[in-house]
């Protein structure tokens, strides 16, 4: 068993432990930021080293090291690094447990890296719990009433979702006798046609799996936790939740549904239609409810519910596509990358502004362009990218995912999606409007640390790069989409 194959994960664990230990010895907490960043960079480096290797199954087929997993092992450290850079200002608000904050973020990232490589129902569940438990604690870090309420809500609803997920896994296991994804697929294929459709338990198991994972990605109709949790959590954690935890959820949905439930074709078309309908309703609900929001974190929460809708279109495409076409998966991966930089950029700008203004109400963002033009410009760029206006990453991502959907017969879904983009323009541009047109209510510029500036510039650079020269990103997504399958 070659340990080098799980070097990124080991590195991540070591960094988390190192941060906890370092917290005991050092007074200046920016040391912890630096240690975390070094660890994340090392993990990223190990993943790059593994990129050239062959696909291998490890731990008795419970995990696999393939390009798909490695893609996410590149993506998650970057997301975690950006969140940690942005947290530097925020962490000073916590009375204690500052070291534990960084460690929990790293452990959550570790769980995400594990889940992207997991190919067995058990290892998936373990990794999922690692992610969730770390996030439950992180959401409540501010220890005020709202934060604690958000954490409790997330914990309770998350526990119920995990229970439903486990129940679904039990059904799948019951009807196929296997927990390894490839073996499940083989078992389903070996059942006769009559056998599969006469096994309603299997269908129920799949539906329960959709419910459990749907909670994780805040897809309709499992999205009710998102606005409250996003609003109550510390804003860097909101950013982390909206981007990384969602990406992890999509990673595992892609892997399970592609590896285990792709055949027979009528099965994949069944769940593809379920996802398509969920996408359509989710986009519409998310966009419409976002319109009356006055708190920017809640607005971004509903916006991320809508964005999850766009992403689910990719899953539906994957279900309807033939085995040879990977368009659904690669367009979804590209969308995840673009959505990550865009949403993180928006949240990082919100972190800086909320720090100064002291509130999260959109009306308090008045006249920001006069006080901090670069910050306003960065937030404007990210909001334009979320709307899907060129030349940003958001537009390219939408174009790619919509074109793959049209190619597999989902024109009706694409029409709903583009109309939703128009609706979303209203509430995104409303924030742009108050920033640029109204008079500022506060004095002085918005202070922000160098770390935050670095993170913000990195995000904006990513948005423009993926928008103007998307080819590199698309090529990477295409390579990564070829998952290790049976």
């Amino acid at each position, binding site marked *: 068993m070659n340990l080098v194959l799980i070097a990124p994960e080991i590195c991540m664990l070591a960094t988390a432990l190192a941060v906890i230990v370092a917290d005991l010895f050092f007074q200046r907490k920016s040391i912890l930021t630096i240690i975390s960043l070094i660890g994340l960079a090392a993990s990223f480096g190990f993943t790059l080293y593994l990129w050239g290797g062959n696909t291998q199954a490890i731990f008795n087929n419970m995990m696999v090291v393939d390009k798909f997993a490695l893609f996410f092992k590149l993506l998650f450290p970057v997301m975690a690094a950006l969140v940690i850079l942005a947290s530097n200002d925020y962490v000073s608000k916590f009375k204690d447990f500052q070291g534990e904050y960084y460690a929990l973020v790293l452990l959550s990232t570790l769980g995400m890296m594990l889940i992207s490589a997991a190919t067995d129902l058990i290892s998936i569940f373990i990794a999922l719990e690692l992610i969730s438990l770390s996030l439950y604690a992180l959401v409540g870090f501010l220890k005020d009433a709202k934060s604690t309420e958000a954490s409790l809500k997330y914990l309770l609803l998350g526990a119920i979702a995990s229970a439903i997920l486990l129940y679904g896994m039990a059904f799948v296991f019951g009807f196929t006798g296997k927990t390894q994804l490839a073996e499940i697929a083989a078992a389903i294929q070996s059942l006769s046609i009559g056998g599969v459709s006469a096994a309603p338990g299997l269908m129920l198991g799949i539906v329960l799996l959709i419910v459990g994972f749907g909670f994780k990605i805040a897809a309709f109709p499992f999205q009710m936790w998102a606005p409250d949790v996003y609003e109550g959590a510390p804003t860097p954690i909101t950013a982390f939740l909206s981007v990384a935890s969602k990406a992890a959820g999509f990673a595992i949905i892609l892997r399970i549904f592609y590896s285990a439930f792709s055949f027979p074709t009528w099965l994949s078309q069944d769940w593809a239609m379920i996802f398509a309908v969920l996408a359509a309703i989710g986009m519409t609900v998310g966009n419409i409810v976002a319109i009356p929001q006055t708190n920017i974190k809640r607005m971004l929460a509903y916006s991320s519910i809508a964005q999850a809708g766009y992403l689910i279109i990719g899953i539906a495409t994957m279900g309807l596509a033939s085995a040879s076409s990977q368009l659904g998966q690669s367009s979804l991966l590209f969308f995840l990358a673009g959505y990550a930089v865009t949403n993180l950029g928006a949240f990082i700008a919100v972190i800086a502004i909320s720090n100064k203004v002291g509130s999260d109400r959109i009306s308090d963002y008045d006249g920001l362009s006069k006080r901090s033009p670069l910050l306003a410009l960065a937030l404007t760029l990210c909001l*334009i990218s979320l*709307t899907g*206006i*060129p*030349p940003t990453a958001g*537009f390219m991502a939408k*174009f*790619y995912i*919509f*074109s793959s959907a*049209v*190619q597999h*017969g989902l*024109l009706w879904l*694409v*029409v709903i999606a*583009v*109309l939703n*983009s*128009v609706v979303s*323009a*209203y509430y995104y*541009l409303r924030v*742009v*409007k108050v920033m*640029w*047109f109204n008079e500022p209510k506060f004095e002085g510029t918005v202070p922000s640390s160098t770390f935050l500036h670095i993170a913000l510039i990195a995000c904006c650079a990513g948005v423009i790069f993926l928008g103007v020269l*998307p*080819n590199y990103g*698309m*090529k990477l997504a*295409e390579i990564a989409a070829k998952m290790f399958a049976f």
Partner: protein
Amino acid sequence: MDFNILSLIIFLPALGAIIIACISNSHAKLIKYIAALFTLIPLILGIVVFCNFDKSAAMSGVMQFQEKFSWIPLINSYYHVGLDGISLPLFLLMDLLGFLVVLISWKIDLRPREYFAWLLLLETSILGVFASLDILLFFIFWEIEVIPMFFLISIWGAGRKEYSALKYVLYTLFGSAMMLAGILCLYFTTGSLSMVDIMKNGIGSYVSVVPTALMFFLLLGGFAVKLPVFPFHTWLPDAHTDAPTAVSVVLAGALLKMGGYGMIRICVSFFPAVARQFAPLLIAFAVVNIIYGAAVTLKQTDIKRLIAYSSVSHMGFVLLGIFTLTQVSMVGATMQMVSHGLITGLLFATAGLIMHNTHEREIAKFGGLARQLPMITVIFTIAGLGAMGVPGTSGFIAEFMTFLGSFQSNVTYAHVFTVIAILGILMGAGYILWLLQRVFYGPPQDKFNGVHDADKLERVYSAIFIILIFTIGLYPSILTNIIKTGIAPIIHLVGG
């Protein structure tokens, strides 16, 4: 041309915008000179392109000054720009207007840095639309103009500026949403995003799962919102009236033409059979545009709103010319686009000047300005004559060709609709002459004593507009020869 002159012209204003964004707001003069420089150089290069354009019949249907670079191989998209007979006049029009609006905006003192940065970015995006030969590139440039327009109208506008800006954005995005769906269907059917290839192969050579009529109407939806076609025109009066003067000039002069250009380049060229099938329906809408637009214009009481509604009517001529599908009418439609750009551009510029100097906008409050503002009166009258289509001005050539072509058309009911549409000229004369009489003639009013007439800069840019209007009006073949080479292959496809 050995070097990439088109890309240079398209991206120089954007470069200027970035440079301007780095200068502080206190150096207003420097900002304005840089803006003027970065729009003058593209204009000079544009004139060079115009002079080097090959008008011979052998080059008809061939794209000139082409540049093609691989951009996103995964979806078969190239950075492909080029000009032909249809796009060259419109490209040059925007080139010219880009420079002239900088002159028109010379007196802006509120946040000049952002104003000129957005203005130059707007010019890049519109130039890109006319020069693009790749559908994705076309769409991207089409969308980029939304954000500068949003900012320009809502910060530097007047009246209900924020409402008008948001209305403009939402309408445009709605049209673009339809267009995107159409583009995706087109890409799915043909597997290619190259305008040249699709037009050459013809949509019939591809197996289409999506009916071609659906694709046609999805794409037309986007262009119909832009042109605008009744009933998608309600954004236009608000956006034009509440926008600052220079932005109204660009909006009327170039942005509306993007819709007409798209219709010719994409809707008619790619789907000639569908265009012929639905031509009577679209001509009916054109006539509604012309008559209804002119009728509503007659009852306007705000000077800018009046000119805005007259644009709706004039764009009806363009729609009529395009969908009667004859060589003469389509050349006339393109001529109308260029001519309207110049004439209505001048109308808006002068109206803005009047509003700025007299601080009034209601027509009822004006009167007898010819005595106090003789220069402005002359300029506005000439522009008004052009809008009416008086012989000698480019407006006459455009309207005459459009009507001549549409009367000869073999589209069903074409001559019936043409005759009805000619009524629009009569109504046009009505509102222009009434406007001139109410604003300039009659007894002079004391409250306008001491109002400034057009100063040197304003006289210079007005002169440029007027010279061009008369040049095209008296010697139209400098343009029609070029436009003919672009229209000929399309007519061949449509069988007109």
